[in-house]
């Protein structure tokens, strides 16, 4: 038996190019549906787990999917904004602990998430270096941001202008990184967290500037009309918040009318969740969604297409299998003279058949091993990689 295996092994080695193509084809037939299914399942599981851990989302009326993708995965466009004042209304209800979210701006391609400290507790995010944000203009970055931008406590990140053509828009804000989060293996690793008030300053709703009533700001005064002072373009507005100028930063109007992209209400219990859902169900301007249901709805909508994809994969597999079978049959035909020689040398029909089968078995075994290795590697690396692609 070992002689048959040895002869089969030598044959495959001699025809290494043909063998390599066969192994590769069979490997792909095995690996592609299995590996892809595994990656997709793991990614989907991670994504739905995040939706599961976020029981409710409150936003302005619009696309629920956009609200969920923006608020939980920091992707998609900004949903219509709602007023910060809604946060206090939710808190006053005594049913939930609301967490504000303002996900609109970016820095070097990473989302800037305006929120408050409750978010970190809610997501179980821990600092690996530095400290928690304290003042305006301070930021805590996710582990992937720290790695990709090579920033740590003491470094700075700058918000990106929303449009390069918006020359009259808000200046980019330089924010000091004070802490780096430990890897959470979620979208939070890719985000830059700032206080909600810092996010409003990025938008220009709050700013710091020279005191126009002081003599050193005289050059910036266009005109004085009683108690009213009009500044000209020379007025120095700060694009960085430091201990020296932080006192000058202020917001115009009531914070309650400042924007949020969403509120993450954390219900105190199941009954509170039902009550708060009912309260906002028919609200004319706001929508409250259960992220898991939104994701499930999306999955349900596309399950039919998923079946087509699986059928296509099976058909491709059958076609590849047929080609492999054809290759083996043609190979047998081409080797008829070789088999006649073996027969004349005293080889029985069983021995010759065993040799052929051994060659096929070795190719299949090698393919199976390679496919298993690829699947293992996919399990380890594929999920995070694909998730990074999906959420960026």
């Amino acid at each position, binding site marked *: 038996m070992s002689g048959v295996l040895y002869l089969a092994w030598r044959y495959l080695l001699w025809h290494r190019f043909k063998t390599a193509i066969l192994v590769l084809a069979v490997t792909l037939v095995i690996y592609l549906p299995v590996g892809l299914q595994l990656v997709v399942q793991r990614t989907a599981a991670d994504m739905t787990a995040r939706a599961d851990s976020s029981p409710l989302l409150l936003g302005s009326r619009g696309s629920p999917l956009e609200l969920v993708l923006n608020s939980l995965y920091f992707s998609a466009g900004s949903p219509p904004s709602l007023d910060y004042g809604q946060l206090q209304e939710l808190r006053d209800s005594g049913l939930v602990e609301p967490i504000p979210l303002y996900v609109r701006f970016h820095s070097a391609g990473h989302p800037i998430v305006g929120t408050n400290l409750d978010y970190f507790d809610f997501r179980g995010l821990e600092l690996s270096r530095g400290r928690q944000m304290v003042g305006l203009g301070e930021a805590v970055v996710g582990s992937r941001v720290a790695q990709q931008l090579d920033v740590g406590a003491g470094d700075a990140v700058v918000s990106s202008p929303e449009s390069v053509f918006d020359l009259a828009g808000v200046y980019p804000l330089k924010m000091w990184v004070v802490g780096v989060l430990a890897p959470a293996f979620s979208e939070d690793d890719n985000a830059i967290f700032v206080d909600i008030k810092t996010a409003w300053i990025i938008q220009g709703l709050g700013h710091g500037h020279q005191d126009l009533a002081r003599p050193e700001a005289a050059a910036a005064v266009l005109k004085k009309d009683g108690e009213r*002072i009009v500044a000209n373009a020379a007025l120095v507005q700060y694009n960085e918040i430091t201990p020296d100028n932080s006192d000058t930063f202020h917001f*115009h109007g009531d914070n309650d009318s400042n924007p949020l992209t969403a509120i993450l209400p954390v219900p105190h219990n199941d009954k509170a969740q039902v009550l708060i859902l009912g309260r906002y169900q028919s609200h004319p301007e706001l929508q409250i969604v259960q992220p898991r249901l939104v994701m499930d709805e999306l999955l349900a909508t596309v399950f039919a297409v*998923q079946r087509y994809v699986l059928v296509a994969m099976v058909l491709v597999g059958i076609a590849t299998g047929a080609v492999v079978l054809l290759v083996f049959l043609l190979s047998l035909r081409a080797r008829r003279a070789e088999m006649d020689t073996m027969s004349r040398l005293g080889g029985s029909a069983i021995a010759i058949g065993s040799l052929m089968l051994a060659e096929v078995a070795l190719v299949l075994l090698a393919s199976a091993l390679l496919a298993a290795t690829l699947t293992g590697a996919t399990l380890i690396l594929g999920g995070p990689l694909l998730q990074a692609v999906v959420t960026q």
Partner: protein
Amino acid sequence: MRKLLVITVLLLAGCGVEGEVPSTEAVGTGVPVIYTVNYPLAWMAQQLLADTAEVVFPAPANVDPAFWQPDTDTVLRYQQADLVLLNGAGYASWVARVSLPGRTLIDTSGAYPEQLLTVPAGPSHSHGPGGQHSHGELAFTTWLDLGLARQQSQAVSVAAQRLLPSQATAIEQRLAELQRMLTVMDERLMALGRQLGERPLLYSHPVYQYLQRRYQLNGRALHWEPDQVPDEAQWSHLQGILQSHPAQIMLWEAQPLPEVQVRLDELGIKTVVFSPMGNRPPSGDFASGMAANIERLEQ
């Protein structure tokens, strides 16, 4: 393209895995810690909670907590507190410039926004697309209206009971005692207000707005500091006020310098220290400090 990829991934998803829901409940580590932004709130919390919680008011004794700016380490300790009692009405403006967990913040004057008073705004100005605006503020020494102080103590009580449900009955009992104490002082001030009637008063600083409204006093505020000698412009400003507002009593946040007191005496103006009690008194507590304020004004 990215949306397509998201949809493709979701398309192919066969099943999901139930994720763990992170809890927002803090793990209890013994006695809860309550931080406050001024002394009256610290006193109220201490009265209500006795030794069942650690009440911390970290401002140094020699500063006005309304304008104090805590350092980073102190703010980090505020972040760790189980409860942070705010006075509201824009008091301690540093709160608006730092990050604190929303779930721990209690605005003790949140129940009466319509009763808050505004102080004259600074000059309005405009620049850029934001339009005209000014940095006007609310008067924040709310607790000098002891009726509002009672409401603040109620807010502290509600937050304390939520924090320590097992102590709810005891807190309710202590609240009744605290409110009785505040009511007694409130009635004394009411009587004093009736006694003073329309007699003109002066205030060394604009911090007595709520005292004036509640007890119907007829006062006008200056911007004099107890540890500074007013310049001649300020004295002549005072002379001008006295023409139309012949006050004979001036309320001070603290004892003025002797030379200031002598000159006021010459003008026939009696100085009365009425401490707003924003910070911890050198001796006694809020109740004894307010009682002393009332006694000095009664004399």
